[in-house]
Every structure is written in C-alpha cells, then in structure tokens.
C-alpha cells in the first residue's frame, strides 16, 4: 500500500471536517473521491499533502509519515504531486519557468536537464508551443495542464487532484480529463476529488463516497455506482447521475 490513511480526524473550530477516516491505496490505483460539497473531500486530499493539520491518526505515504509539524515536511511533500482547483500557477513566470523552477530549486537539477524534462512533459500535455507564454495568456484548461506538468516534473509517487476541473468552462473540462486519463493508464497512483461521475466510472479502480467527514461507502465503480448499499449514497447518486 503506497498510501495508508489511518483513522485521521481533522477539525476547524467546531466543525469536524474529517471524522476517523481510513483509506488505503495500492500503487498504480486510481481512487476517485466523491460526495456533496462540505463533505471533507478536499480536506482529505489536503491532509495527504500536509496542507492541513490532523488532530489524530496518521498518514503514511511510501513509508514516510506525513505530518505538518515535521521539520523536513517539505522533503516529504515533493514526493506527492498536487493539482489545485484554481491552478495556482506562478503568474510572474512563463510556462517553462513554472515547470522548471521547483526542479532546479528543490530537485537540484541543472537548467538544461530541467528544461528537457519540462519540454517532454509540456509536449505530453499538448502545450510545448506555449512554453514562452505567461499564465495570464492561457485559457483555464491550458493553465490546468501546465499545473499537471509542473507537478509531474517532480517525479511524484502519488498525484492528488483537488477538483481539477471544477473551475473550468465546460468545453475545457475534456482536455484536462484526457490528460488525467492518460496518466492513469500509465500506472500513476492517483487520488482524485471530482464531480465528474463519468470520469470516475471510466477511470477509477475504486470510488469512495464521503459525507459529513466520514467514508460512507467505497468500492469499484461497477458496484458503487450501479448498486450502492447505503441510503446516503443512493440519495447523492440520484441527484448527480
């Protein structure tokens, strides 16, 4: 198991965002996390990258304990790629520098080596011709594809997608999902928070349904989407399908 989440809880003031959540992900698996808004999906993903404090429980990714208070937490984070809903590209750097920067600063790669890797990845997401442009000149779908290339450039062992297509215009969702689909088929371990049930059905090895900070149900798409066991799951799916 490359990702082991054991009994984690996360609270913001009086609100319990995650309540004793456990989740194991095998290497190469794609796990889609679905659920109503406010159910804790994003919080779960953010905990996996130590962007939120967990109150109890533990998270182990590839043998490393993910703890925000850990002094070397930045070295653990670089093994985990994250793609954000709002892209969070660096607006002052062009596309190539966006993908290069952390490779040079964090992975200590030379400029030539980093550029070569960046160009391969940009070609992979179909944006090699945009390397000189600034994020402000790109469409939403293009920004998100650059963000994916930027995360991949660190050779992460796990990729986290936090509602990667939720801020996109409908006609741009497809191009981002296509990149994610290809990544999944290449064997990347992925945790995907998504509202795209179609994508989850097609790509996920397992779907996890989260509600009120708890995992209500999980299973392969064929089971969970077609024949859900819990009433909450049924109600949710009735609304979104």
């Amino acid at each position, binding site marked *: 198991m490359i990702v082991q989440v054991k009994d984690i809880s996360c609270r913001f003031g009086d609100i319990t965002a995650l309540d004793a959540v456990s989740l194991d992900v095998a290497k190469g698996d794609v796990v889609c996390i679905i659920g109503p808004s406010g159910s804790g999906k994003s919080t779960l993903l953010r905990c996996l990258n130590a962007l939120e404090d967990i109150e109890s429980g533990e998270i182990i990714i590839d043998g490393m304990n993910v703890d925000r208070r850990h002094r070397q937490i930045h070295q653990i984070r*670089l093994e985990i*790629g994250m793609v954000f809903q709002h892209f*969070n*590209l660096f*607006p002052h750097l062009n596309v190539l520098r966006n993908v290069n*920067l952390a490779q040079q600063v*964090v992975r200590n790669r030379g400029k030539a080596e980093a550029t070569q890797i960046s160009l391969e990845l940009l070609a992979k997401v179909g944006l090699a011709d945009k390397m000189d442009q600034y994020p402000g*000149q790109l469409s939403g779908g293009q920004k998100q594809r650059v963000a994916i290339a930027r995360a991949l450039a*660190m050779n992460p062992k796990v990729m986290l997608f936090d509602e990667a297509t939720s801020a996109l215009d409908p006609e741009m969702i497809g191009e981002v999902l296509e990149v994610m689909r290809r990544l999944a088929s290449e064997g990347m371990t992925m945790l995907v928070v998504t509202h795209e049930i179609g994508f989850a059905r097609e790509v996920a090895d397992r779907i996890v349904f989260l509600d009120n900070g708890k995992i209500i149900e999980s299973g392969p798409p064929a089971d969970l989407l077609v024949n859900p066991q819990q009433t909450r799951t049924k109600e949710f799916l009735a609304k979104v399908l």
Partner: protein
Amino acid sequence: MDWLVSQISSLSKIFFYLIQTVHWTILISVLAYLIALALGLTFGILRLSPRRPVRWFASVYVNVLRGVPLLVLIFFFYFGLGKVVNMDRFVAGVLAVGICYGAYLAEIFRSGIQAIDYGQHEAAMSLGMTRWQTLRHIILPQSVRIVVPPAANEFISCLKDSSLVSIIGLRELTRAGREYSSQYFLDFQTWLMVGLIYLMLTFTLTRVVKWLERRVAVHGYGVEKR
C-alpha cells in the same frame, strides 16, 4: 527690462550656489533609503514570522519608529547617541532618516507579501519548497510588483525629509538655502529656487518610477506592459 535681467541673474546666481550642495541631498537620501530598504524588507518578513517573539520584536520596531517624529529622531541620534558613540552629523543624519523610513517600508513590504494569494504558498509548498525558497522565488518577486509604487513614493518622501537634517548642520540643499538667504536677504528668490530644485529632483524620480513599473510588469498580471 533691467529689473527682469537683474532678477534672472540673481536667480541664476542662487541656482548655481545651491546646486553645489544638491549632491549631498541626493547622497543622504539614497544612503538613507538603502538602509531603509534593507531594514524594511527584513522587518516586513519578520512581522510575518511563524514565531511569536520574532513577530513581536518586529512590530515593536515598526510601531516605535513610526510613532516618533523624524526631527526628534535626528536630534536623538546626533545629540543623544552621537555623544555616546561618537557619530558625526552625516552618519547620525543618514541613520536617523534610514531607520525611520525602514519602519514605513516594513509595513509596505508586509502588506505586499500578504497581498499574494495563499494558493501561491500552497502550490510552492506542494512542490517541496521550504518557507524561505517560497518567499524568495514565488512570493517576493510577485510582491515587488505591488510594492514598487508605494515604496517609490516613500523614496520621494525620504528625499524631501532629508531637508530635516539641515538642522544638525549638514550642508545639503536646505542648509545652503538658509545660508544664502541669511547672507543676501533674498528670502523669496532663495526659497523659490530651493523649492524648484527639490521639484526637479522629485519630478525626475516620478518618471523613473513610471519606467520601473513598466519594467516589472508581466502580461495579464498587475500593471500592464505598454
């Protein structure tokens, strides 16, 4: 006609007298501003430190220095500290102005850093950058674009406030004006000329700032490139 000629000749005499001291005004304000930039950046960052004592220390500096008139600070440095550690008037004047403006700039840098979307921190951290790497490569380069106009404004203020050090006998532009007017009793013409020279300096500076703003502009982000 004669009146006009004599006025012009006396004004130009004043101009050439005063202009010989303008390099002191420039030197004092540039040195003071460089000190202020270094202090401002340092304390602006320290004010956002995750450690409470560090934040507290930085906010004491800002609030104390911001709350004392610059003139009092100049007296304190020259007459007060100057007696203890043997500073000449130049060092005392530059330090007083620099430390005072450091406090103003600290606030500008702090707000410039805080203005950057938190998503930028998170993206940098998720790529494995440390706090310092994030600040250096992601946050500060973006803050600069926000900070340039107000920080340049402070330089213009700093240049004007450098006239205050004339009071401890530093022979810069304002001091020269006082000497000239008390020697020749041409108060109106002298102070008019002093004012005009300051205006020349500050006007040139505003042009430089405009140019600087365009230089740091990035397409689709903040100030537009023209």
